[in-house]
């Protein structure tokens, strides 16, 4: 495609091929396919063998001679990973969940050949009492979502540029190159109110406008999604890689850069493969390279793989790593906009930030600014994980309350447990306790309660999670990942971890809690980069909202959630124990002995645990069928 006219011709030809999925029946009639079967090819579903499902589908469809009628598409992530592998069938829009390859022959035969939807394999929320079917996008999980960054995830085949073009792909780039000045592009992004989705929340348009003059400038996409439990960026790269290619090219045009780099974690092999395919396809089709769409503008990009260092998500460390060095951050100023990658002016944005750009250009700054809250515009993608029914990713308007996200969209806490807290922002963030569940989630509200938006990981914790243990877990992470360059972070986080360890072992004092807080504030104020400056956040937030749990650990020497094993005592209820001896067999330390008490109705004497010898391993509890053993 060398001109805009050629791009439009490709779009015209391709648009009917995706019309079934967008619900445009008139257009869909032009396609030879009467049915589209979409199978999730994201990391979650691939891990549960969605490729076998695709292979079986193709074989079965061929067996019935329907290859010309049914199109099987491997898409990116649908979002509801808890129910994977997922298969969505159009035109009905019905949602098959937790599908196995051996179910496929039956579905092909019954549904595709005979036209009877096999309701027993559908996601149960989509089957109504009268046997009719709800479309997947009308379920609780999907109906409140607004998909901007994820608009193509689970809709198109990410390895086919034509499907992307059919969904208005590369139209925004064409608009920029043919009818907008570079400054207008930056101005549009500025007016939209888009803020950095990696966690910092810096206005993207301002970042673009700061870039210094120079003969060589760079655009960098930060896809080093390192927060544990966060997988928003991966979903975008796996499901819609072309939108990142398009957005980076637009950014290159706006700031005058001709080269881009995407820094992706090597732990995301599917994302890397699809992004490489997208870059190659874009180049082959004239969307990257010299003289893009006949405009005279040149831009190209390449992928650089990370190698497992959390600090490389920090923008200066990331640039140092792209240059082939140990990924240590550098002091600012000079800021990357003046002296960034290879000492040239550089704009760096996160994947989700870029994913919003083409839509803002196409639909206008006002459209984007109409969503969200006063200072946080648009939508945000969250990865729901931990103790929540619908693990997966969701995209919601800024300002949605935590309660809506967790209880309505996320389906609440499994096993009837009580919600305790939600951790946002991973190891750099804080936790939101149950009493603040009605907080409208946006950048400023979360900062105001001493938390942070972070990149979008949202880990839900229930009453069985100990908050001191969680803080310790995150500190173990940051101690491991501190690059070692500056002392406050390298030594300070280690000391923090030691203090937390002391507390979880029951050796802490009330004075330690004050020391903990003082050291946290010192590390925040004096560390070189974002990693150190935010590392104490999980401790500060848990201290603020769950100080009583810390106090229980240091004063009562108890762990209320029953997690910190040094503080637990295991006891056998003498009336429930039938004296079978299973626990004594399981015990690695021979601490369980007979008593001389026989409970009414039992034949054998009950057992007891000798506390001084107990290792607190819990092997006895898992062996007891009578629920006679408890830990406190």
């Amino acid at each position: 495609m060398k001109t805009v006219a050629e791009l439009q011709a490709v779009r015209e030809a391709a648009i009917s091929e995706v019309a079934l999925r967008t619900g445009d029946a008139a257009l869909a009639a032009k396609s030879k396919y009467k049915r589209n079967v979409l199978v999730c090819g994201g990391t979650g579903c691939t891990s549960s063998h969605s490729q076998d499902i695709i292979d079986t589908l193709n074989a079965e469809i061929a067996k019935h001679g329907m290859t010309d009628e049914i199109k099987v598409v491997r898409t990116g992530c649908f979002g509801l990973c808890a129910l994977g592998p997922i298969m969505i069938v159009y035109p009905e829009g019905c949602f098959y969940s937790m599908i196995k390859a051996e179910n496929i022959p039956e579905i092909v035969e019954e549904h595709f050949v005979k036209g009877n939807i096999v309701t027993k394999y559908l996601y149960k929320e989509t089957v109504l009492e009268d046997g009719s079917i709800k479309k997947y996008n009308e379920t609780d999980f999907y109906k409140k979502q607004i998909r901007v960054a994820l608009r193509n995830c689970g809709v198109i085949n990410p390895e086919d540029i034509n499907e992307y073009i059919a969904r208005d792909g590369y139209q925004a780039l064409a608009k920029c190159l043919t009818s907008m000045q570079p400054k207008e592009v930056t101005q549009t992004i500025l007016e939209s109110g888009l803020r950095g989705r990696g966690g910092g929340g810096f206005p993207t348009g301002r970042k673009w406008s700061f870039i210094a003059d120079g003969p060589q400038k760079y655009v960098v996409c930060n896809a080093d999604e390192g927060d544990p439990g966060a997988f928003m960026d991966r979903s975008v790269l796996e499901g819609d890689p072309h939108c990142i290619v398009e957005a980076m090219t637009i950014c290159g045009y706006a700031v005058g850069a001709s080269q881009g780099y995407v820094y992706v974690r090597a732990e995301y092999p599917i994302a890397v493969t699809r992004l490489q395919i997208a870059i190659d396809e874009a180049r082959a089709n004239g969307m990257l390279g010299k003289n893009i769409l006949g405009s005279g503008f040149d831009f190209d990009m390449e992928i650089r793989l990370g190698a497992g260092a959390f600090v490389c998500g920090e923008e200066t460390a990331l640039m140092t790593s792209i240059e082939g060095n140990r990924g240590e951050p550098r002091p600012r100023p000079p800021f990357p906009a003046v002296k960034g990658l290879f000492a040239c002016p550089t704009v760096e944005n996160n994947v989700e930030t870029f994913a919003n750009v083409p839509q803002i250009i196409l639909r206008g700054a006002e459209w984007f600014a109409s969503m969200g809250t006063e200072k946080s515009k648009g939508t945000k993608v969250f990865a729901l994980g931990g103790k929540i029914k619908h693990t997966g990713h969701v995209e919601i308007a800024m300002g949605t309350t935590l309660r809506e996200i967790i209880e309505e969209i996320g389906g609440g806490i499994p096993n009837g447990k009580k919600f305790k807290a939600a951790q946002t922002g991973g190891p750099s963030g804080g936790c939101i306790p149950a009493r603040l569940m009605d907080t409208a989630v946006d950048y400023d509200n979360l900062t105001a309660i001493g938390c942070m938006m972070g990149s979008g990981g949202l880990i839900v914790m229930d009453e069985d999670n100990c908050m001191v243990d969680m803080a310790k877990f995150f500190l173990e992470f940051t101690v491991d990942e501190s690059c070692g360059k500056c002392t406050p972070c390298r030594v300070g986080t280690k000391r923090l971890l030691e203090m937390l360890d002391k507390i979880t072992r029951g050796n802490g004092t009330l004075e330690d809690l004050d020391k903990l807080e003082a050291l946290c504030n010192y590390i925040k104020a004096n560390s070189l980069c974002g990693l150190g400056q935010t590392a104490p956040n999980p401790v500060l937030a848990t201290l603020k909202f769950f100080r009583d749990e810390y106090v229980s650990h240091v004063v009562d020497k108890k762990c209320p959630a029953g997690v910190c094993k040094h503080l637990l005592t295991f006891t056998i209820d003498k009336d429930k124990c039938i004296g079978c001896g299973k626990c004594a067999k399981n015990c690695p330390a021979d601490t369980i002995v007979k008593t001389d008490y026989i409970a009414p109705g039992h034949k054998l004497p009950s057992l007891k645990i000798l506390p001084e010898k107990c290792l607190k391993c819990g092997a006895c509890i898992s062996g007891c069928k009578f629920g006679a053993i408890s830990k406190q």
Partner: protein
Amino acid sequence: MQKKISSNPFRGTPEQEAKLKEIIAANKHDKSRLMGVMQEAQGVYGYLPIEVQNMIAEGMEVPLEKVFGVATFYAQFSLSPKGDCNISVCLGTACYVKGSGDIYDELQAELGIGGDECTPDGKFSLTACRCIGACGLAPVLTVNEEVYGRLTKDDVPTILAKYGK
């Protein structure tokens, strides 16, 4: 975190060396590709012993000290060989809150090795990894490329048995 450096003797083959030279030749023009070369080298040898680091340093014309510095900085680079079955347990937050720590402990007990170690027969090695992004299946572990999800401690012997333990 300090990396464990293997004392096992280096057993590189001429074929592996030829492959490494090819990789270096393709990337030599751009020194910023050092990490990429090391990643591919690890793909060829399975790990990065000092002999391989030396070849990379000479080939890319960078000091060995820099190669060693990069190798020890990033978690992905291993200075110890991996077993035929490399078991990697996710200790990301989502898996951790669902009990992957217990699974990791159980594996250490069953295999008789610690984290980042390889059994003496070269059959199993064990590592803890950061979030692999399959949080919907938490807790998860991977054996080579195969992912096992929704696990409990009791699944450990069954999984090990599948790989001939």
